[in-house]
């Protein structure tokens, strides 16, 4: 699987050849004699191509060559969520092609690449990709109709062939590609009636399934550039520290080691070798020593203490409705609970890696990134090269989960690569990946409700204490008051409506650690807190947790529908075998509704068997139903893993968890016995799905465990000793 370097300054010969061919072929019109087809063999479905050209290129997403080769250029990156398949479906549906006819290219930065995150891909692609397909179809049909001296409305398209229905004449798209290219691009092409969809709404196989089961998909880790060397890195294990010393000669004495590099900030070393094992041995021999710097004293408790201290004192009022504090002050009954959540690592299966070749006249970067534009910017800044001399080659990502919304590893790789003449692939060990991650923040949340005489909410106050991730990641998005609106997901934005409400945010940035986005972002934090608290109130009121939520959702038919359906599907009102208990959660996040029920058994206080999870999803119009189900199944398991087991801890400023023997990931024998996902039919615009299951995992499991044990689980991970009887008792 060699990905040849593409020199941006190289003449675009393929375009010229195909362009000329297109003109020539148009003069005679397709079909050409078979012997003249000189095109390279098509890549296997799902393999990424680069720099596709075509006689017809009506927009950023579609290239159709005169030989009828169709390339779709996809704006969001594939990291498991199935977006390449959905994107192709959106265009193919309107364009009139088969999915199997398509080659795919990852959109390069500056030419259509989007940020891939926040479960937004389908929401942002839904209209433009259909419009792109419809506009292209309309131009191709017009070109064919002109050739036939017929009316466009007499033509149909299917499998990239235009048929003049009255006469049965046909032309492949490629035959009219150049003619179509000369036509004006329609601004508002008519879109298909969804009732006539043949792809959208019908489960399609993933276009990357076959190459992934054959081991042919090229991840960043698999990039092979001729002449490349392999480097592995060690950054100072304490944030803010610097290199104090190292045994360069010992490293260079290891067979296969080529170079020892240090970055400009003097806080990261890189040992370069012929292969990873030599680099790894070289790094061990190098024995870098560190000045630990100002964060040498940071421990996990430092972080938790500052969060709990933030529960009193000043805070930003982020959202307010009526006089919630006043109602609470006058209420006969109130209920308060404090929730705590830990730092979390991403730990995608593919450890962080990046390959770069920096030359005087150009720079190529091969990597998996959710944010290709920033990768381009950092390469331009570091090399001083103009952006058109830099190429970012986006690869398949072996798990994103937000990790690859960071691009510091691209910066790091380019910094080292510009010190050497050859292409350099940097591979982080799993230890480096876990201890130098950028972590999901720890948070403390406190909620207080005023309750009426039946135990329902008359006012709610909520204080979030923690970092504002957006302040570092995209400072312009921090509100002028200093609020990070991501925190409103599943917190302000919920299926419920309260008579009086107040949300406060006390910002506390964690010392000695960089915090970042993690699958489910604010929704994962918020849903655990809010759905846990609602569950507490139901138990306090002596009302069934489903019935309690139903009473709060009378105004919200979509939320009520998923809740009712999940209660029925999971048999909520049916008896359970002895020792088992059920928990429920309802959500509206990322534009989608879901209700879920978990059925658990806890033979011992630290042993949770998840027998069954049932989820009902209303994500608006479903594009690829089986992949929505797949995302919910996987998202739940990803979330269960963190909810049960995971907490990054710090001692002396150093992260303590460094591989899968100390960072526990749910295994098959620990996964739910059964997950049933039901989809609600809907004609609403599609919502997001990649983070929906993960957001539900902790609350639905915590609520089931609370039912099983008769104590609340307000601290993550759920198996933390903090959830003991004293801390977890129901209190008002």
């Amino acid at each position, binding site marked *: 699987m060699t990905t040849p370097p593409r020199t941006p300054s190289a003449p675009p010969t393929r375009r010229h050849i195909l362009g000329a061919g297109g003109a020539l072929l148009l003069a005679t019109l397709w079909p050409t004699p078979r012997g003249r087809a000189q095109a390279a063999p098509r890549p296997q479905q799902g393999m990424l191509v680069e720099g596709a050209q075509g006689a017809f290129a009506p927009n950023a997403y579609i290239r159709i060559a005169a030989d009828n080769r169709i390339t779709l250029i996809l704006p969001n990156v594939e990291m498991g969520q199935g977006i390449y398949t959905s994107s192709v479906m959106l265009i193919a549906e309107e364009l009139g092609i088969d999915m199997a006819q398509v080659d795919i290219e990852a959109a390069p930065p500056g030419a259509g690449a989007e940020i891939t995150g926040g479960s937004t891909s389908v929401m942002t692609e839904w209209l433009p990709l259909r419009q792109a397909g419809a506009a292209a179809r309309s131009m191709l049909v017009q070109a064919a109709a002109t050739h036939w001296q017929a009316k466009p409305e007499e033509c149909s398209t299917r499998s990239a062939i235009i048929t003049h229905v009255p006469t049965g004449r046909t032309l492949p798209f490629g035959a009219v590609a150049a003619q179509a290219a000369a036509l004006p691009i329609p601004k508002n092409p008519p879109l298909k009636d969804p009732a006539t969809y043949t792809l959208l709404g019908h489960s399609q196989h993933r276009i990357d399934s076959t190459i992934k*089961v054959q081991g042919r998909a090229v991840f960043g880790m*698999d990039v092979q550039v001729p002449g490349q060397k392999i480097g592995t890195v060690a950054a100072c294990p304490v944030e803010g520290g610097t290199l104090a010393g190292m045994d360069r000669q010992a490293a260079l004495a290891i067979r296969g080691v080529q170079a020892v590099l240090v970055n400009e900030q003097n806080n990261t070393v890189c040992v370069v070798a012929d292969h990873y094992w030599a680099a790894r041995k070289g790094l061990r021999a190098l024995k870098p020593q560190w000045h630990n710097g100002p964060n040498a004293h940071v421990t996990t408790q430092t972080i938790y203490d500052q969060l709990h201290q933030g529960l009193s004192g000043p805070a930003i009022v982020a959202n307010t409705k009526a006089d919630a504090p006043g109602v609470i002050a006058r209420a006969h009954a109130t209920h308060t609970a404090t929730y705590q959540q830990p730092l979390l690592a991403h730990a995608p299966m593919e450890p962080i890696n990046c390959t770069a070749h920096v030359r005087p006249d150009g720079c190529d970067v091969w990597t998996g990134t959710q944010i290709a534009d920033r990768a381009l910017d950092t390469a331009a800044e570091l090399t001083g090269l103009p952006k058109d001399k830099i190429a970012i080659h986006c690869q398949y990502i072996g*798990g994103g989960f937000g990790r690859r919304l960071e691009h510091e590893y691209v910066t790091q790789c380019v910094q080292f690569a510009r010190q050497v003449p050859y292409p350099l692939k940097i591979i982080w060990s799993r230890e480096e990946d876990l201890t130098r991650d950028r972590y999901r923040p720890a948070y403390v949340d406190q909620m207080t409700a005023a309750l009426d005489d039946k135990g329902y909410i008359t006012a709610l106050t909520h204080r979030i204490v923690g970092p504002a991730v957006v302040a570092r990641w995209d400072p312009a998005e921090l509100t002028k008051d200093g609020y990070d609106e991501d925190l409103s997901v599943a917190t302000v934005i919920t299926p419920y409506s309260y008579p009086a409400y107040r949300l406060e945010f006390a910002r506390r940035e964690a010392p000695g650690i960089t915090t970042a986005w993690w699958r489910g972002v604010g929704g994962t934090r918020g849903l655990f807190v809010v759905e846990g608290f609602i569950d507490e109130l139901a138990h306090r009121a002596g009302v069934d947790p489903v019935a309690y939520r139903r009473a709060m959702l009378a105004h919200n038919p979509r939320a009520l529908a998923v809740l009712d359906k999940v209660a029925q599907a999971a048999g909520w009102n049916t008896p359970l075998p002895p020792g088992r208990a059920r928990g429920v959660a309802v959500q509206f996040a990322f534009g989608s509704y879901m209700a879920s029920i978990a059925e658990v058994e806890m033979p011992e206080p630290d042993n949770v068997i998840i027998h069954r999870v049932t989820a009902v999803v209303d994500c608006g119009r479903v594009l690829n139903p089986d992949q929505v189900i797949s995302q919910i199944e996987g998202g739940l398991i990803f979330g269960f893993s963190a909810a049960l087991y995971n907490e990054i801890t710090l001692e002396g400023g150093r992260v303590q968890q460094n591989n*899968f023997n100390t960072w526990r990931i749910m295994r098959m024998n620990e996964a739910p*016995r*059964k997950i049933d996902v039901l989809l609600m039919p809907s004609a609403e615009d599609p919502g997001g799905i990649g983070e929906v299951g993960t957001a539900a995992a902790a609350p639905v499991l915590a609520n089931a465990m609370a039912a099983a044990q008769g104590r609340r689980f307000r601290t993550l991970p759920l198996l933390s000793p903090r959830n003991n009887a004293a801390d977890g008792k129901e209190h008002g």
Partner: protein
Amino acid sequence: MLSLNINGQPHQVDVDPDTPLLWVLRDVLGMNATKFGCGIAQCGACTVHMDGQAVRACNLPVGLIGERRISTLEGLDNTDPVANAVQAAWVALDVVQCGYCQPGQIMAAIALLRSTPKPTDEQIDSAMSANLCRCGTYMRIRAAIHHAAGALA
């Protein structure tokens, strides 16, 4: 120079004998289907077969392999019914998400079905729990193994 038999082909490699098979496959021979995940035999992304048994390539020093036959995902014989059934089941059920762990999962599943043609859920869990999947495709892996077993029956 060490001699290795990989996918039925002899290979001579000039590396230290403590070099794990994984890095000989990936960085010396350019065979990338076998993945790096942890380096300490905790995740199974590097699962290959040695004399038909599933082993972890990341902590298998090449100096200890000797004459034993190594098989990797790219060397699967396309006339092998078990390999075909497993890969076909994985596609039929769209098991993969990011796909990075799946070469290891597939090699583990093939080894399981060769020794246990009709595995129960418990036998599947027992054989497959050494292979992590961060995307959480376990439900579909389990179903795909049953599917493949059914196709082979």
